[in-house]
């Protein structure tokens, strides 16, 4: 999968975190995983589909990062998991999916997105609609890591209208 189809999701993470949490995360190199094991304790996953594109995107947070994200987003100071933390993970995933959706639509590949599903628990499974391998991009908000996961499949002949629009790796900061 060409990086230009992953970049909209990476950019959306940068933009979402910077805008809603007030801090742009740093990112590391993308990797892939070939199993269904989530890397965090709380994950939000959103599916997307159309005639030309289908797949899913997820954000997976260690518990500390999920709580930290909630606190940053609403200005609170809790230290335990709650329904609000769960909702925060879902909403951040939803916003990231929406950000990528707009870029894909601008490039001629529209799709519909699902309402987020949130999974909680150590060593939980995260099964993506586009199957494996799943592209994973590690991020961190200071000392608080999290992972973006993308699985996307394009239909026969489906491609961005302008594949040369961006050639540089997306850097959050």
């Amino acid at each position: 999968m060409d990086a230009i189809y992953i970049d909209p999701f990476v950019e959306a993470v940068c933009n979402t975190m910077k805008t809603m949490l007030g801090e742009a995360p740093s990112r590391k190199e993308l990797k892939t995983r070939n199993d269904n094991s989530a890397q965090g304790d709380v994950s939000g996953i959103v599916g997307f589909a159309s005639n030309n594109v289908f797949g899913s995107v997820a954000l997976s947070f260690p518990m500390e990062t999920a709580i930290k994200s909630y606190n940053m987003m609403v200005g609170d100071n809790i230290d335990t998991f709650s329904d609000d933390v769960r909702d925060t993970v879902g909403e951040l995933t939803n916003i990231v999916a929406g950000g990528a959706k707009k870029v894909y639509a601008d490039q001629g590949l529209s799709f519909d997105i699902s309402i987020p599903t949130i999974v909680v628990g150590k060593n939980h499974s995260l099964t993506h609609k586009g199957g494996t391998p799943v592209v994973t991009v590690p991020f961190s908000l200071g000392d608080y890591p999290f992972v973006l996961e993308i699985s996307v499949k394009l239909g026969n002949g489906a491609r961005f209208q302008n594949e040369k629009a961006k050639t540089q790796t997306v850097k959050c900061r």
Partner: protein
Amino acid sequence: MKILVVDDSQIMRRIISNNLKSAGHSDIIEAGNGAEALEKMSGIELILTDWNMPVMDGLTFVKEVRKEQNYAKIPIIMVTTEGAKTEVMEALKNGVNNYIVKPFTPETLVEKLNATLGK
């Protein structure tokens, strides 16, 4: 001013409500989807609604609101992840007055709020 905030995310409703309160608006009613929102329309003077929600989505909710003579002039701001031009145009065509794409800053929300209210 009585304001109705509609979003299936409790966190997002809280963020929007907090921003509205910071802007001086304290009479805020919340709903988790369009169907619930329709039941809470009495006395409402401004609506902020999400698009993608279970039970009844935001666009359907807007269309239902605009069918009612009594609600025809209530300003509606859509606050949503749907940022593509076609979606924005569809919302405006169906009676939405202003549009905020998530993610948004408090400043953006207040700016759009004031623009909608003609301030």
